[in-house]
């Protein structure tokens, strides 16, 4: 309450994308310019105090779940981890739904294409044992396990997917997140589906479309490196090609 009195005279303009059907456009809202607030705070303020029809996603609001990912001033970010003071320019802020995904309403995108490509890239575990088999003996210092672990912290927030220009220009491209997880599984010796996986990532929408722009590396909030993973997939598919031609 004390905070509100102090900063009530200072406001800023936030442009938020509104869409419900075919009518997408930016709408401006005046919100309090608080010293310490995140973009998610601003979006929540608009929905709670100005326009209750604004649709947006969030969950943990502490930078762990990735649900609140949106385009902030043209860059894909977790809004709960984006301080307004760091991104506001001339008291202007622009919030839009994640790029490269269909919009359901306002700031909420349809994540189905993202997850469909996850499956199509074989970024799914193929078990090779049953509960009756002994556990696989994998030591933490095994190089393959280290490679798998370095790529494993993806929480499917789709920020990299939104950052990627190849995703934008090629509707078939699986995208950085799916390929990154596929690489992680290539390095999982428990997985039984490597042939199927390499065929998938070497296919039309696969890893060979990556131009190494490294926007995914630039924007991943978990500091993952999908370009590195995709380079690994390029090497593995090349090796498989020469193995086949033996």
């Amino acid at each position, binding site marked *: 309450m004390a905070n509100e009195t102090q900063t009530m005279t200072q406001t800023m303009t936030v442009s938020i994308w509104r869409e419900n059907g075919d009518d997408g456009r930016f709408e401006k809202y005046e919100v309090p310019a608080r010293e310490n607030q995140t973009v998610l705070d601003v979006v929540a303020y608009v929905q709670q105090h100005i326009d209750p029809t604004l649709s947006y996603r969030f969950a943990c609001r502490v930078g762990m779940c990735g649900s609140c990912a949106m*385009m902030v*001033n*043209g*860059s*894909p970010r977790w809004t709960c981890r984006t301080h307004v003071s760091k991104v506001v320019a001339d008291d202007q802020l622009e919030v839009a739904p994640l*790029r490269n995904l269909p919009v359901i309403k306002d700031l909420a995108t349809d994540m189905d294409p993202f997850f469909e490509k996850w499956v199509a890239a074989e970024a799914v575990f193929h078990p090779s044992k049953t509960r009756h088999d002994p556990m696989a003996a994998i030591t933490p210092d095994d190089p393959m396990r280290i490679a798998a672990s370095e790529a494993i912290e993806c929480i499917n927030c789709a920020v990299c997917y*939104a*950052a990627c*220009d190849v995703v934008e220009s090629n509707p078939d491209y699986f995208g950085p997140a799916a390929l990154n997880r596929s690489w992680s599984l290539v390095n999982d010796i428990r997985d039984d589906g490597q042939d199927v996986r390499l065929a998938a990532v070497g296919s039309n929408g696969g890893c060979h479309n990556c*131009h*190494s*722009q*490294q*926007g995914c*590396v*630039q*924007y991943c909030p978990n500091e993952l*490196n999908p*370009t*590195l993973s995709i*380079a690994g997939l*390029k*090497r593995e598919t*090349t090796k498989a090609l020469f193995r086949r031609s033996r």
Partner: protein
Amino acid sequence: MIRPHRTHPLWFAFLLHRLSGLGLALFLPIHFYMLSLAISAPARLDGFLRFTDLTIVKLAEYGLVFLLAAHLFGGLRLMALEFLPWSPHQKTMAALAVAFAFLVSTLFFLKAI
């Protein structure tokens, strides 16, 4: 002008690689055609070669050699990225590719004028 999510060095490295390749691909048919005149119309080719002595043409050639060198060194950077173990110095490699391209093309230009 450039969309905000693209304003990072490695995206510009991508753009340079794509535009240099495009420029070279558009230049090549002209280059090949002019060279074929060596046998079908050598006098015309000689006339054209004298025209290329103009400084403005030499500047254009400077640009072309830069595109070729940038595409070469940028391409080597990409193949190192893809086939050698990952280097954490991606921006340095991109910068070096441009630097070498500039050095080589400037050497050409200084020898040409």
